[in-house]
């Protein structure tokens, strides 16, 4: 089973790394619980998981905002807590909450980014804002929520960062804007040879843009696979559809769109065209994995690290 799902670390080098990372907040909340993760250089990785899974916490650890309680994180091998400037130099981060200055215009924000970050290139930012018809002279306070998110993303693009860490960048965008943004992101990443990790609850769009899927649940890593593999290795059917002995394993059972109970199956290639099962969508893979992580039974499939 292990062979089915392997992390593909390009060039053996990871843009972002997590080693046995645990984070316990004051008050005892265990946000991360032993995360091992490598985000390979050049990949666009989707980080998904239910609310409170620890996605934002992990991202904040990479930008040096949260210090892991144990374990370590690295950005191109740099510990962001020890050498924050060097790590931040390589990161373009967008936080989950829009955080623009009230009373400053969009153009002011572009100027601010230029004054704060040496090497900031206003070109891509302006171009993106222009495409979106967001007026540079508008006070950001009066922008819609989605427009504010767009400004944050446009600013991140101007950093020409080596790795983009985007915390739910799609959440408040309209469907067209989501698609467009992902195209822009993919172009930017490909053009600069960069890497991106984005957390999202919107599955349909990331399927096209991302090449890697990491699922977190309850502070643990549940899945970490190339997206194509995630889809090809799973199939969906009813719980009774296949006997376990047939080489397929049930992963988790979740409600279908019409209230029916669906089961995600992990199938070896030789069983891939079993008529009792149909191909799984990425959303179904995630639903099945999340259901498995929630049920008392531990997931049956291997978890590469």
């Amino acid at each position, binding site marked *: 089973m292990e062979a089915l799902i392997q992390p593909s670390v390009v060039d053996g080098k990871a843009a972002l790394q997590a080693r046995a990372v645990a984070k316990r907040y004051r008050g005892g909340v265990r946000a991360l619980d032993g995360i091992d993760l490598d985000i390979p250089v050049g990949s666009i990785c989707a980080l998904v998981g239910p609310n409170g899974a620890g996605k934002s916490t992990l991202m*904040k650890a990479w*930008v040096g*905002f*949260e210090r892991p309680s144990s374990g370590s994180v690295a950005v191109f091998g740099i510990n962001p807590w020890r050498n*924050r*400037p*060097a790590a*931040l*130099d390589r*990161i*373009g*981060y967008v*936080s989950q*909450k*829009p*955080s*623009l*200055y*009230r*009373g*400053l215009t969009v153009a*002011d924000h572009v*100027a*601010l*980014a*230029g*004054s*704060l*970050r*040496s090497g*900031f290139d206003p070109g891509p930012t302006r171009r993106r804002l222009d495409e979106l018809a967001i007026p540079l002279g508008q006070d950001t306070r009066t922008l819609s929520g989605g427009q504010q998110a767009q400004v*944050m993303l446009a*600013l991140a693009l101007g*950093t020409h960062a080596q790795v983009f860490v985007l915390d739910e960048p799609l959440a408040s965008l309209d469907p067209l804007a989501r698609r467009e943004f992902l195209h822009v992101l993919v172009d930017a990443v490909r053009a600069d040879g960069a890497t991106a990790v984005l957390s999202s609850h919107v599955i349909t769009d990331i399927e096209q843009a991302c090449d890697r899927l990491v699922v977190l649940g309850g502070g643990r890593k549940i899945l970490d696979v190339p997206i194509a593999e995630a889809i090809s290795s799973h199939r969906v059917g009813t719980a009774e559809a296949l006997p376990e002995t047939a080489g397929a394993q049930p992963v988790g059972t979740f409600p279908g769109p019409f209230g029916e109970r669906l089961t995600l199956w992990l199938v070896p290639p030789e069983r891939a065209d079993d008529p009792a099962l149909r191909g799984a969508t990425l959303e179904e893979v995630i639903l099945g994995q999340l259901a498995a992580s929630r049920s008392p039974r531990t997931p049956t499939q291997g978890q590469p690290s």
Partner: protein
Amino acid sequence: MRTTIRLLLKTYRFEFIAITLACLAMAGAELYLTSRLDALALPKECQFDQNISVEQGFATQPEEPVSDPTLVDSCQEKAIAFSDSDQRSAVLMSFGAALPVLAGILIGVAVVGRELETGTASLAWTLSRSRRRWYLTRALLVGAILGGVLLLPSFTANILEHARQPLIDPGSSFNDGGIRGPVLVMLGLLTYSIGVVTGAVVGRQLPAVIITLALALLAILAFENGVSRWESTLAEWQPAASSSYSIDIVLEQDYRDRASGLIVDQGSVFNAAPQVDGGPDGAWIDAHYDSVALVVPGSRYGDVVAVETGAIGAALLVLLGLGLFVVIHRRPD
């Protein structure tokens, strides 16, 4: 740098406008009262004693008979009008002392506290490689602008002081010494830096305002306490007649035994003196003792201001460093 200054001014425009308007209003009111006092200043013939202030001139009766008996009445009338404006000046100057403190709090808590509260710290701290540069740039620039704006009322307070005591150089007088001149600016900056640190620790503006107010009052009390302890080391004994409560800091009034040269407190002298009409005999005391006062002479005012400015300056550096430590180590929300 020009962009940074422009954006800082724009970010804090409401604070800066409010503070500037308050300072302009204060300076304007002080200059207005100055012109009133100047217009009401007692004419030469009413200044019976050149060595004492106009207020005291009002209370002092001429030692020699004045040729024109109506002069005393008209002088009293003028002195009453003067004293009226002088009292208003005193009230204004106390408000003037509160102004830098309030201004320092208002803008101090915003420098880091508001960034944390509104989440913009997270944007700035990832765009900028160095939180240290981010923090020092804004803390120093905003502080410099605040200091510059506060210079105006601190300067006009000195002018008003001069109008209130026209015969005295405010640069060598301790009268209202703590609520005018550079000390006023420094107290504003002290409060400002307390606000910066509190805002950085608390991360919320409103609670930071309240905490800063309390801390600033404590700091100012401690500062005044320390200053007056230190000032007492500058004190020297002088003939009592040559010291003035409106110029010097008079710490003690005693007697010096003419025979031994020793300082004796008033109680002992009164007890030692023969009793006349149920009280100590003044003539006997005058014959044996000189009345002396332990004073910090007004001429030391400049030195005291320099030391106060230096002490607050050192405190500012410490607070600035503390703020830096907090900014570097805290999470941005």
